[in-house]
């Protein structure tokens, strides 16, 4: 299992950089991963999405899709792309310390 140094912490990750041990996740780790993903600072809007994703993962065992985030009214898809440019569902899941969303099969 590959390991990776983010900020001052070492985390276990899979081949695509998703964390494999949720116990290693902290807000500092999240901020460090976010920086690697090109997000300089996590704002309250980012945290709203991250916390929602973690809650959803706990309940369903899966990271929510973009469509689900939009439908539950956390943020609109447009805002989600502004917060997490590129692939927002994947990026937000990575920062939230979740495994890669399963929607992609």
């Amino acid at each position, binding site marked *: 299992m590959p390991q990776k140094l983010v900020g001052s912490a070492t985390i276990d990750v899979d081949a695509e950089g998703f964390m494999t041990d949720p116990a290693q996740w902290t807000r500092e780790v999240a901020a460090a991963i976010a920086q690697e993903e090109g997000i300089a600072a996590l704002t309250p809007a980012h945290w709203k999405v991250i916390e929602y994703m973690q809650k959803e993962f706990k309940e369903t065992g*899966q990271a929510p899709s973009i*469509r*689900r985030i939009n*439908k539950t009214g956390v943020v609109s*898809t447009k805002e989600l*792309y502004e917060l997490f440019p*590129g*692939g927002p569902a994947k990026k937000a899941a990575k920062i939230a310390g979740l495994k890669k969303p*399963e929607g992609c*099969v």
Partner: protein
Amino acid sequence: MKKIVILGAGTGGTVMANLLHKRLDRKDWTITVIDKDDDHYYQPGFLFIPFGFYTKEDLLKKRSKFLPKGVEFVICDIERVDPAANAVLLRDGRHIAYDLLIVATGTDIAPSETPGMLDGWRDTIFDFYTADGATALAAKLKAFPGGRLVVHVNEMPIKCPVAPLEFAFFCDWCLRRHHRREAIDLVYVTPLSGAFTKPVASKALGVLLEERKIGTVADFSAERIDAAARKIISYDGRGVPYDLLVTVPTNMGAEMVERSGLGDELRFVPTDPATLRSVKHENIFVIGDASNVPTSKAGSVAHFESEILVGNILRAVDGRPLEPGFDGHANCFVETGRRKAVLIDFNYETEPLPGRFPFPVVGPMPLLKPSRTNHLGKLAFRWIYWHMLLRGRPIPFVPARMKMAGKERPAGA
């Protein structure tokens, strides 16, 4: 007398009717299958309609022809399921009670989910996921003078995630054979980061796009389509112009699923990925594209699921615990043009890998590599589908659960 009701007589529903008819005690159980019409299309053939290889009539047979005698077949729209009352309500007012229900209502395209898509529908925007769409596209392609042809995937998951790639590959080949390729610019636009969802296959299939001079726009999630300006616009503000757009619209489950309160945000039924039972209801099972299980939506998956599901339904009937037997196995031929195809074989845990199938070393089919044998396999599959798969007959050497033998993980993957 107890009753099993199967909603949908497509691939999954038909196989289940055949398997259960053989294996359930007919003194105790009756089987009823419900569908809106009697038209069963061989859907993998839709890909070839736009290029004039098939007409839709070539791919059509009667659903009723593939259901065993002794199984009741009701043709009617389904209004909704009432899981609390264990009953199905039909559009014509009939109530059909069930002891066990199997949802096999599949998935369909939902172009209205993308603003602007319907503005250019079957004018400059076409699908090939429906018999009518593929037929309309055939006429359009024949008359298309040239320009920019964009093959587009709107949103994942979609039925047969390799079909749009096959379309691009096959289109390239047909245009070359007719000496029209120079006049047409081919571009592949996808919300994924590459050609496919899993890294090893994405790389192998990405190379095929490059070799064929098909441009790729990745990580592109369409917000809307400006049909007047002939442009797809993404959430992050990028625009892709087209002269002809061949799109795979958002795929959603049956509207009936939503009316019944059984679905998620895409109207797919939350399903236990290993037992194939509904997460919410003990006496509801799900097969094929209708479920939300994280594997490909494909006929091969419905076929593999059927072997596991029939065992679990017999267990449920006897009051025994279910077996978590389904591993997400999928097996797909990917037509690459030039009379060749790629074969991929994978499951929940193992991504498509190179190697040989079904036997190590001798194959005869290579995995993840274009070959003539795979192309012949794809063509032969139509016969296998009608004569073996739908009847619930096992396919020789291809068991329900994926085999690791013959597969090789490339270094560094």
